């Protein structure tokens, strides 16, 4: 993916840049709002990562608003040191697609960037069937089959599996699951999500030879075909 990173803190920028490049992405960088806006307008990117607070008058939200006014729909992830829910809402209202607060784990940022990049590409055609390896999901009939065998899932388990399948091959974090599958925006302290994933595994993976859902240490989960 082509990614633009606008962040003024040198250490954070270098850290994110290195991580994204190691993951095989092409990343441009800017350390102030003016350069960032210039790049965002003149080049075409798959995802923009904008720090909310930038020196020199043009901050992340301004860049975002300018882009949206010009009908530029590139997915935008906002980075912010403000953890307040109101700020989150304000950021999303300005046209942001996702929001990560500092300090963050790189794995969280990475997972969200990849999810955004994929969304930019795939959401054009609404799908009614999803398949990964021998797993098939029928989104209309709301049925799941693996290797031709029907699997019974609760509605929430179905949505959880659907989310994992839609992001197959990508790491999804616990917070992402809590936000996207349950629509909760709070810190659940305990491992509520882990328990739900392990229940899903019991049904989707346990009876079969090889597992589809894998745990990624310090990050989250991934659903993979291999």
């Amino acid at each position: 993916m082509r990614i633009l990173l606008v962040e003024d803190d040198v250490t954070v920028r270098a850290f994110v840049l290195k991580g994204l490049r190691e993951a095989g992405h092409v990343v441009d960088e800017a350390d102030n709002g003016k350069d960032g806006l210039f790049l965002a307008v003149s080049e075409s990117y798959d995802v923009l990562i904008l720090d909310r607070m930038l020196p020199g008058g043009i901050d992340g939200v301004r860049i975002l608003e300018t882009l949206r006014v010009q009908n530029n729909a590139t997915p935008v992830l906002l980075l912010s040191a403000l953890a307040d829910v109101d700020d989150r809402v304000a950021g999303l209202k300005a046209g942001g697609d996702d929001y990560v607060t500092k300090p963050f784990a790189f794995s969280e940022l990475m997972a969200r960037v990849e999810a955004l990049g994929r969304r930019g590409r795939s959401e054009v055609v609404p799908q009614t069937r999803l398949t990964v390896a021998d797993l098939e999901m029928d989104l209309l009939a709301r049925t799941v089959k693996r290797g031709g065998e029907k699997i019974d899932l609760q509605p929430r388990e179905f949505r959880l599996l659907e989310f994992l399948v839609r992001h197959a091959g990508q790491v999804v974090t616990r917070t992402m699951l809590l936000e996207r599958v349950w629509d909760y925006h709070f810190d659940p302290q305990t491992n509520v999500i882990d328990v739900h994933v392990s229940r899903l595994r019991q049904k989707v993976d346990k009876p079969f030879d090889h597992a589809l859902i894998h745990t990624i240490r310090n990050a989250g989960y991934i659903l993979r075909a291999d």
Partner: protein
Amino acid sequence: MRVPQFLVKSFKPRWPVRSAGLNFALAYGSVFVLSAGLFLSFIWWNTTGQIERRVEVAVQVDAHDLAQRAQRGGMAGLVRAIQDRLDHNVEDDALYLLVGPTGRRYAGNLPGWPTAVSGTDHFYELAIQRDSFRTRAKMHAYILPGGCGLIVGRDIHGRELVRHVLMDTLIWAWIMVSLLAAGGALVMRGIFRQVVGSIARTTAAVARGDLSRRMPLTGNETDSISQTVNEMLERIDRLMDGVRQVSNAIAHDLRTPITRARARLEEASVTATSEQALRSAVDRAVVDLDHVTSIFEALLRIAQLEAGTRRAAFTDLEVPPLLEGLAELYEASAEEASLRLKLRVDAVRPVHGDRHLLQQALANLLDNAIKFAPSGTDVVMHAGMVGNDVFIAVMDAGPGMSPDDMARASERFFRAEAARHTPGSGLGLSLVQAVVALHNGRMVLQDRKPGLGVTLYIPSLGGELVREGSIV
């Protein structure tokens, strides 16, 4: 033409007195003096008018009577009648003059026809000479049939006297009223000063840092101000308390994980012999720092909630779906801990609140219950109405808390002795307390022997009771 700015400014009329107390007193005084003036003027006008009208009516009646005499008794009768009246006029205030068409004087006590009296259509008021003294008189002239001229009038010297006495009395009364008004104004100003002074003294003491001072309540109208100021002080006090608690907390409870992370990193940098060891030390330090971050975030959030300004996301909420969602989320965790999570929702009214905050609060309660309850027991979430409040209770059959611990449960970082070996930082209930307070509700802890019940009471909106249900 443009007018210079300073001119425009200086042209604006401006009341020169700044002191509110003085203005108050001045306003009071002027209203008093003005109304007294109006009142006294009315008395003056009414009394003198009354006397005036009396004279006029008497003169007219008299003249009418004499005219009739003239008709019946002719000139001689009229002369007799006038003479008669003059003889019987004890007060000696009646004035008459009868002259013939040629100007010859027939009767009366006026020396001659006054030159000023030239018409017969209205009263004349003039100075006249009577016998040996000068006096004022009011008179009216009439032309009788046959061309005779008749003047009927009254000496109004007495009336003038009354007028003077009345005027003097009223002026003195007005002076006295003004003095009273000035005295009253001074008293008013004094009262005003005293009230303002007591507010000022208290607020000044507070400004100097003595937050325990409160305005005395005296039972008069200023109590509403005092009460508001006291409430404000109460709030400032609470906020200051929060700040103090947070700084203490940062001093003690954040130092621990930071110190731990620091020690780990330093030790690893000095002693680690393999990359493996170094990595694992760094990973553990990252976990410690994440812990610090989460404590930090929780503290900030609690402080923000306690400031009471975060009501932007408040909407009218149905409680049952909110509880069902949470029960569904936590049911798996409960089962994993070999607990049964039961939900019972009676018919409840909607509440006005922030969905995410209420979810967070209830999640904290469920989290505690699941953390502390022994396996094989039930965790019950029960919602219903008491009076006008919606209550939501989370009850477990765990170790419960002692009354002393309960009293301190919502303090930041408080953890009971028995909870030392469980994970957590003691901020869960503080947040619940803050959320509930933001919703104008309250949190009540109670010992269920065995177990703890935490009940949140939140004021409901009026309206329909919403469906009931239960998940067991």
